[in-house]
């Protein structure tokens, strides 16, 4: 089967005034469909850069990236936007919900840009909200919801287009322990029950522990890549 994400010798340089910062320095990684991968590493290790490139928000300086078998460097900016809209879901640390907009309208947003019919859109958005256990707050606005609820709305938004990959950037960074646990349990359930592929960036080991595979970055390179079957078994 074609891997969802396949990168070879991925390089990303940021030119500065008098030198160049190499954020990614030859990364090789492959993520299969149905995987739940946590990317760890200290600040400046390149994990965020990696996620931006994988999420098609940024382009690499060198190397190859195939998303669902398609070479990304050949895609135009509009193609990248369309791929993000149809095949990728994003969850951010700061939720990034539209204010003064109801939960269900927030969940609909990716479908608006994908050109889905308004009636189908509403039905799919309500279904996604049901999946994250928030059907009862569909018509509430973000400021009426707790942090954990807002993040679950954001998760509903990320999965509403049936993406091939959900990218989560520090999704528990702004949450308390209890809400963090809820959100991670939700990710795990989505991965296990629905087979959704998830790439999660975090610097907290106990958050990463929910994933089946942990990739650790340091100085733009992969330091370790291990399956966490035993850890996961221990958690259960």
């Amino acid at each position, binding site marked *: 089967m074609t891997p969802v994400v396949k990168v070879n010798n991925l390089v990303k340089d940021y030119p500065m005034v008098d030198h160049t910062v190499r954020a990614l320095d030859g990364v090789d990684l492959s993520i299969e469909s149905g995987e739940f991968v946590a990317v760890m590493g200290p600040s400046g290790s390149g994990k965020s850069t990696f996620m*931006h490139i994988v*999420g098609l*928000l*940024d382009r690499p300086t060198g190397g190859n990236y195939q998303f669902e078998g398609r070479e990304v460097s050949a895609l135009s*900016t*509009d193609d990248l*936007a*369309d*791929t*993000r*809209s*149809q095949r*990728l879901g*994003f969850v*951010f640390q*700061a939720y*990034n919900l*539209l*204010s*003064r*907009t109801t939960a269900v*309208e927030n969940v609909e*947003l*990716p479908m*608006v*840009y*994908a*050109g889905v019919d308004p009636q189908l859109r509403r039905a799919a958005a309500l279904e996604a909200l049901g999946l994250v256990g928030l059907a009862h707050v569909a018509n509430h606005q973000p400021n009426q919801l707790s942090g954990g609820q807002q993040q679950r709305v954001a998760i509903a*938004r990320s999965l509403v287009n049936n993406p091939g990959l959900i990218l989560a950037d520090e999704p528990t960074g702004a949450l308390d322990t209890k809400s963090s646990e809820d959100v991670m349990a939700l990710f795990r359930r989505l991965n296990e029950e629905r087979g959704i592929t998830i790439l999660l960036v975090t610097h907290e080991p106990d958050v990463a522990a929910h994933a089946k595979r942990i990739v650790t970055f340091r100085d733009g390179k992969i330091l370790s890549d291990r399956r966490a079957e035993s850890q996961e078994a221990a958690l259960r």
Partner: protein
Amino acid sequence: MTFLATLRLAAQALLRNRVRSILTMLGIIIGVAAVIVTVGIGVGARNSVQAQINSLGSNMLIVMPGSLNQGGVRTGNGGASTLTPADGMAIAQLPGVAAVSPEVNSRTQVVANGNNWQTTVTGVAPTFQFIRSWPVASGSFFTQSDVDSASKVAVLGQTVVQNLFPTTSPVGQTVLIGNVPYTVVGVLSSKGQSGVGQDQDDTVLIPYTASLERMTGQTNVGMLLVSATDSSQTDAVQTQITGLLEQRHRIVAGRPDDFQIRNLQDIAATASQTGNILAVLLAGIASVSLLVGGIGIMNIMLVSVTERTREIGLRMAVGARNSVILRQFLIEATVLATAGGAIGALLGGLATIGVSMTAGWATSIPPASVALAIGFSALVGIFFGYAPARRASQLNPIEALRFE
């Protein structure tokens, strides 16, 4: 993504920030409302000037006696007593002349029905009602045979009727004009005030022959009213009348004429020129106020783009193309401007009606000017919305998402 879907997105974004949207529109609203009010009053004023000119008579020329030099002493205009009914008949034969009527004015006391009233008794020909576009309200006008026989018949103006016959119908009754009994054959319709505030209805019309015979005892008339067949003919007719009268009055070349001709088209032209100056002025006000409104929109849209940087980043992350972002912000600006224009036109219309009701001025708002104002507002929105929209569409999604 369809235009309609983008329009809906823009509308949602604007409704989310209602107060700011209204404040942003305020510049355009006030600008367009001011334009509509000034246009309404300006056009109303022009129309009433035009109506007054038309009420004097269509395509009318007035031939008046000129100055007379008697042994070095010059009388003023009207001093010459050389204009005769025969001159009028000769003028009536000229090509381009539709009708001619002499006018002989005298002020006198009119008595009837136990009432008396001093008014202007004017001797005219039946063509007068055509030249002045002044039909009778009841009865009929006197005829050419009344003129030929200098009949003692009269047509009364409305003001005279109110003062002499407040309760009864005057037609068929007798009035004493200078102690001579005249039979009332008709009553004129109301004409209202003239351009200089004179009550045109305070008059009694009799055949000019009767006037010359019984009132003035002279052979010359006060003036000749001439109606050209077409408004484009008035200048040509004026030249021909000048030639004809110089010949009839034996004016030696180089000597001053003993008559003068007033052309109402000149007055009409002056009035319409005034109207044009007014229109240019209004267009100036309109463009300045819409420019200011447009700058206001650009300012707020730039603030809005900065404030919504994270939102824009998110929209890009979930799949909005740059062109869609550009379009959404452009539409937001255009919707703001167009809605502002429409609200402004509505308020301006209401204010114009208010002015017209409180000040009693005639006003008129041409639909085209409303359409133009709203259309121009939309253009202002597109023009001033482009820079902020472009800035939004060029944002880097990663930086936008991190923006605090």
